[in-house]
């Protein structure tokens, strides 16, 4: 699993990346009450606003951690947005992206580097 400075995570299987937000991001947001997942087929550039996650008090953008085409969105979040808090780095995934440049994943932080980064915040 790799991580961005905006607190998204990526797990690459073949050329498909599963993406979501980190446990730290979920804790900072508080109770998630609504998720707008990306549409399947949408082509994203790394850093594009990909999804929206809403807590009681605010809406926040989730950015595409890698470039590619959305091949699947987590439909369960529509009925159970609280999954993002309960299992942010597992069942609370947002989308699967067919990556156009796998080297983008390698350039992201590994867990140790991400935890070091969290220590600076």
């Amino acid at each position: 699993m790799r991580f961005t400075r905006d607190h998204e995570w990526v797990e690459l299987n073949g050329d498909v990346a599963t993406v979501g937000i980190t446990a730290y991001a979920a804790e900072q947001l508080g109770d998630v009450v609504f998720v707008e997942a990306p549409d399947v087929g949408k082509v994203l550039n790394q850093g594009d606003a990909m999804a929206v996650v809403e807590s009681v008090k605010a809406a926040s953008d989730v950015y595409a951690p890698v470039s590619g085409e959305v091949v699947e969105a987590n439909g369960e979040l529509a009925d159970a947005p609280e999954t993002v808090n309960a299992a942010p780095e597992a069942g609370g995934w947002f989308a699967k992206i067919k990556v156009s440049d796998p080297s983008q994943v390698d350039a992201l932080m590994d867990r140790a580097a991400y935890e070091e980064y969290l220590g600076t915040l």
Partner: protein
Amino acid sequence: MSSEADLKKTPLYDAHVAAGARMVPFAGYAMPVQYRDGVLREHLWTRESAGLFDVSHMGQAKLRGVSPLSAFEEITPGDFIGLAPGKQRYSLLLNKKGGIIDDLMASRPDDDGLFVIVNGACKDNDFRVIDDELAPQVTIERLENRALLALQGPKAAEVLAKHIPEAAGKVFMDSWATTGFGVDVLISRSGYTGEDGYEISIPASAATDVWNTLLADERVKPIGLGARDSLRLEAGLPLYGHDVDETVSPVEAALTFAVSKKRRDAQDFPGAARIVRELAEGPSRVRVGLKILSGAPAREGAEIADTDGTVVGVVTSGGFAPSLGHPIAMGFVPPALAAVGTSLNVIVRGKSGAAEVVAMPFVPNRYVRKV
């Protein structure tokens, strides 16, 4: 934008930090937006037990003079000459065009003038306006050495009665001066959550002791501004600077209850011509409650459209309603589209979601009007 170092602190700043609060800038103060439990649980706790809020950023003042009650009628549409000792009234500070400069509470807890509480973000301007309009017949003493706590929820009365026994015998909008927690207290049975509860003004020097004493009761938890906002939204109560501003009249804001019958007949308050006309002929827009039936929460700034897609208004505040389990909003629409049951749409990030006009409050209020 002010940096964090410029922010003022209430007397309870250290207590908030110690309780794990997330502090944010609000009305020029560093204020707790939430504690460890988070907005959702804090909201629900207030509705089922009792929540304690620090609202010391709000502006407290005493207005004194030969007849401060009649003078106050020069700048508000309320019946203050008829305000009995021991009573509080919700009112509006109006500009010459009938727009709302601020909303406020004014009360007679004792024989010493009129006690007013105004919004924190508006207080400097409010007291300047009051002074401009009413000096020298009225003098203003800002009570900057006092903190203000709100204890809200169905268990607030039992909790407070341990410290201030007579509190249990008071009703909604009673106001009185007493001794409690070993200090002088100005208190009312009111609040801004839709729940029963009290607003408690105490000397700043006693704030931390009173705060800790109330929190020592297991029925009470500290509640941040995040839940205060979702609670007042469910209660259908407007938030100044969002739902109401200097362009909005009391009629448009659906606050006509604050324009007393006597004053309507006399037409002797600022902007009376517009307000009386709107009462007779209807305003061009009116604040309504919306239940969001599908899609994302509609927040401040989201457009409201009719079922043909024509934009007819705008959301002024909205979000997820924890006690209802779905999003709600307030916004302004033409009166023809304001009837309960009217189907509308809200446009969030370019997507249209179904909404329906519903009566406010969204969650029934639980004010204690009889004991």
